[in-house]
């Protein structure tokens, strides 16, 4: 098997995650899909690290994880506060950006 298969898997997972972001309305699930996309990227990084034989890809993946953790904390806090004020976790309900 060629390790490039990992990359195909990564692309597939990323696309599935992206579609989930587009399709789902529950903000938490949307957020999970974003995490899925991040993980797909991480897989690609780790695979690149292996293909190239150095550790930089893994370092990047590591930083991605840290940033993802920070992002999750803030994102979930936002979801909770929106839910508190609007009693809804649907992203379609927060459409104040429209004129």
């Amino acid at each position, binding site marked *: 098997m060629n390790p490039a298969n990992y990359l195909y898997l990564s692309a597939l997972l990323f696309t599935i995650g992206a579609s989930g972001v587009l399709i789902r309305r529950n903000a938490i699930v949307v957020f999970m899909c974003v995490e899925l996309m991040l993980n797909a990227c991480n897989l690609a990084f780790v695979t690149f690290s292996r293909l190239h034989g150095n550790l930089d890809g893994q370092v990047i993946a590591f930083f991605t994880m840290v940033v993802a953790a920070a992002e999750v904390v803030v994102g979930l806090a936002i979801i909770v506060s929106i839910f508190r004020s609007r009693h809804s976790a649907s992203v379609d309900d927060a*459409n104040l950006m429209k004129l």
Partner: protein
Amino acid sequence: METLIGLLVAAPLLGAGILLTGGKRLDRSGHLLGTLLALVSFALGVVLFLDMLGKDTDQRTLTSHLWTWVPVEGFQAQVGFQLDQLSMTFVLLITGVGSLIHIYSIGYMEHDENRRKFFGFLNLFLAAMLLLVLADNYFLLYAGWEGVGLASYLLIGFWQHKPSAATAAKKAFLVNRVGDIGLSVAIMLLFTTFGSFAFSDVFPKVGQASGSQHATITGIGFMLLLAACGKSAQVPLQSWLGDAMEGPTPVSALIHAATMVTAGVYLITRSGAIFNAAPDAQTAVVTVGAVTLLYGAIVGCAKDDIKKALAGSTMSQIGYMIMAAGLGPIGYVFAIMHLVTHGFFKAGLFLGAGSVMHGMNDEVDMRRYGGLRTYMPVTFVTFGLGYLAIIGFPGLSGFFSKDKIIEAAFAKGGTEGWVLGGAAMLGAAVTAFYMTRVMLMTFFGEKRWAADADGHEPHPHESPKSMTVPMVVLAFGSVFAGGLFSINSSFLHWLEPVTGHSEGDSPVSAGAVTAGTMVVLVVGVALAWLMYGRKAVPAVAPRGSLLTRAARRDLYQDDINHVVLVRGGEHLTRSLVYLDHSLVDGVVNGTAASVGGLSGRLRKLQNGYVRSYAVSMLGGTAVVVAATLLMRAV
């Protein structure tokens, strides 16, 4: 002595400052203060005059540099005075006649609650006019020029509660503005051409002007003529003078007869060096003068309003002066001489008219006068002397000065001389006609006055001393000034060092001119007596001939202005507005509307749903990936 020149201007200026800012506490004494300061100014003028007489001819010019007004590198505007024989003549005329009219106004404006303000304005006028004639450079002259324009505006509109007065003031101001543009352009041209404003710098340089500068000098001459036309009510900027009679009569006498309207003559005479170097401009000047002297005379024949008839006469007489000034060295002296004698008799005539109006409940229609000579004898005599002077009755002032102008016109030589001389001669005849008409309608014949709308029948009476005394003084001037000036050609010798003089080449002898003038004088008087003396004057104006009707309407000058300027301006404005609405606004609004429509459509994409935005992002990313791959593939 030099410092006295500054004081000459400062005294009335101080009066204006005090009277206009002093408030109501000066209401009781303000007119006395104003008159006193005018007299102070006159006294200073007399002192300076005596001093000047005591000097040699070539030592007579006094200069006084006060301070630098605009001290900019390459642009130096000075505040400085130059008192020579020409300025001296004007100073005496302005302060002398001005003081008399101040005194007259004490009585005339007695019942006006704004008398203090009136005297403030009069003082302001004196200061500005003195500044105008004493300035040693064009820049300062312009300040005085605008100052007299302002004073004129304020005084014409002095009774601004009357819409006619307010309109007349506005009209005078606007028409004067056209002339002022001419003056400012002339000054700018002078500065760019000669690099200085001062008379002493400019005039010698004009004499040495090189070839290419001659066109500029001609242009300057035309611009100065435009300025003179505006200020001196010459064709085509003459329309404001008749309406300016809406102001109080002393104003008409001082500003719109004796002094301010002669500023144009002063300007042309002062700028003699420029006009001498620009024959084309001189031709324009004499043309304007000749046309105006006939124009004013014709208008004066038809007016029933005594002040408007006198205004037409003023216009005509200034036409004489402008024509004389346009003749060059032949005529400068006589222009100024006529200016001075005219200052006396026209001021006297206006004061007389004011006195008549004073006694007739401010009635101005001569058809409602008649037979007033018994009711107001002093007014009759002084007015009569002024009348004799203006028509050029032998021995009186007007005879000497007007005769000289007609002679000078013939002395121009060639066809031009004959045309100008003929016009001047014809003008003399018409002058005799309309002045006799005024005299007959006012003081002779049956009394024609009746009760006005309120039931007040006028009780004609002689005016108080404060009004009659100035009239008497002016009458003396009207009678003797011309003779005095002509003894040994004293006036000629007095002014010659400033203006220069040449005899010209007259095709007719002086005696023939005098005889001709006498003939036309008699003809004019006789014609008037036939029409207005022998027959009773109807109290309501008859329809009259076509010419009479045209002259009553100032020869349609306002209509011409209306059609050409107002209507034309309106059409221009309307078409511009239309253009603005259809084209400019069309483009602008069209752009805005199309952008707006496009935005409205684009806005539908902004539905506020995050997921829609996410689709756009993913689509965009896909496009970027596709582009990257394509670029790599190529």
